[in-house]
């Protein structure tokens, strides 16, 4: 088997999982001790892995999740209970095996020099944003994190690095700033901001427009249905601008050309 490729398949065991908000959990997994149970390269923020659903093959498609943390011993992710695969995850006992393929996809790029990373997350987007904040902190960089949630019950209880300034916005004002993440960005000097965003599509679209208006760079993490996760099936098409011919649609593959895209590349 050729091992030039960075991704591989392995089994990990659930170390522990905890509820971090209504319907949201953080799960920690540990690699098995043999080298076969470990990835070839350490996953970076923005990247994802896929798991085989517990009810495979009734649920036939692997499920992608973004890393929220990772070290040589294992990795973590944050997930929302949505359907069969995540319901099964929530019911698994500690110690249960999870079949993963990873790391997959592109990473959040480094911010341009002298810029200040502004990380904007909502919903299931919080996992990769947390990982990015951790990486930035490790690199000694400061960051601004803006989190959006509908109400206080959905605000994730997480430990953010000290170098991150965290602003929480709730639609109903039940916690933090009353309003959306854009309200969370007002009164902020964005002249040197570099935006990184992951979350619901409308939220990312708003951050993209804000970045365009303020002429700052913006990277987004795109979600699309995935079957193979490795660029083989063409299932995960993201509409992009075709520089050569704007009249016809062009697509990129979220799994290998993304999930992180320069927001200006995409059709919003």
């Amino acid at each position, binding site marked *: 088997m*050729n091992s030039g490729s960075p991704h591989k398949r392995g089994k990990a065991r659930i170390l522990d999982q905890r509820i971090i908000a209504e319907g949201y959990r953080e799960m920690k997994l540990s690699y098995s001790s043999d080298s076969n149970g470990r990835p070839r390269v350490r996953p970076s923020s923005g990247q994802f892995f896929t798991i085989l659903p517990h009810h495979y093959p009734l649920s036939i*498609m*692997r499920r992608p999740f973004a890393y929220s943390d990772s070290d040589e011993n294992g990795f973590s992710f944050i997930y929302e209970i949505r359907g069969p695969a995540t319901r099964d995850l929530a019911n698994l006992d500690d110690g249960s095996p999870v079949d993963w393929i990873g790391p997959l996809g592109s990473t959040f790029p480094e911010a341009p020099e002298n810029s200040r990373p502004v990380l904007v997350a909502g919903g299931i987007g919080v996992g990769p944003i947390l990982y990015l904040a951790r990486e930035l902190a490790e690199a000694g960089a400061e960051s601004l994190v803006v989190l959006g949630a509908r109400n206080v019950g959905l605000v994730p209880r997480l430990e953010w690095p000290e170098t991150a300034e965290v602003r929480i916005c709730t639609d109903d004002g039940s916690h933090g700033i009353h309003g959306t993440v854009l309200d969370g960005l007002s009164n902020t000097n964005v002249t040197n901001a570099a935006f990184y965003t992951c979350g619901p599509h409308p939220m990312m679209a708003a951050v993209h427009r804000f970045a365009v208006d303020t002429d700052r760079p913006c990277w987004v993490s795109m979600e699309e*249905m995935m*079957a193979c996760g490795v660029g*083989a099936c*063409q299932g995960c*098409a993201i509409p992009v601008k075709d520089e050569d011919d704007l009249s016809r649609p062009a697509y990129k593959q979220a799994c290998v050309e993304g999930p992180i895209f320069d927001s200006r590349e995409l059709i919003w």
Partner: protein
Amino acid sequence: MVDPDLTVAIAGKTLPNPVGVASGTFGFGEEYEGLTDTASLGAVYTKAVTPEPRAGNPPPRLAETPAGMINAIGLANPGLAAFLSEKVRILERLPCPAIVNVAGAVMADYLKVAEAMEEVDSVWGIELNVSCPNVDHGGMAFGTDPKVLESLTYAVRKVYSKPIIVKLSPNVTDIGEIARAAESAGADALSCINTLTGMKVDVLRRQPVIPRGTGGLSGPAIRPVGVAAVWKVSKAVGIPVIGLGGISSAEDAMEYLLAGASAIQVGTALFGEPDIPGRILGGIKIYMVQEGFSRIADLHGFF
């Protein structure tokens, strides 16, 4: 105990073993690097190639259904020119035969791609996709009308000398009739089945999940339909039949081989378990040894 002979003969050429990977699920052969061992494959059937590049359908292109999935990729592919300049190199490096899946909207499309493939040494043979339900001009008419299929196959036969496999659609009243048409026009083998026409509705959005409405259903759910089709087709023709549709284990593969297939392909199951082809091949070997079979071709003809 002698090791069973796993080779499969098609039109005077051989595949090293009966377990291939299905068109559209294995890209152009390199995407699963590190996840599966291409050296253990009987063949890689590439994603469809059309003369011009195709962007494919708007997303979502995929939906999950019970023990299956719907896709509407829309034959997204880089087109013939890019295939020749970029993908052939990958096929050359493959340690197993590469079979190029050929698609188009009109007969000239198929001929153009087939003619080009005639010149490419690293292409073992071609598979004519006359059965793609996911594009408006995806060759579906070729796959549902025996006369149209006959003339298409005949025309391709004239420009292509290596093995021609015609891939049949299950969405027809009489698949045996279609199979005979392809055989009589010179096809060397038939593969069946392509996907079933299926639809999933998002009940809250009150729209089909796939923007164009229907897509192609694949996966374990369709296996019984594929096995029945292979059985009928293998009774209708004398050329080898390559079975696919929902194969995800050695037992599934054995169902197809016993029902009349000379080889099989694994599609959707790769998404869940990319290394499953090797394990399927291992299981077939064990079956043959335990049950006393020395050749793949001896596995059919019991019913």
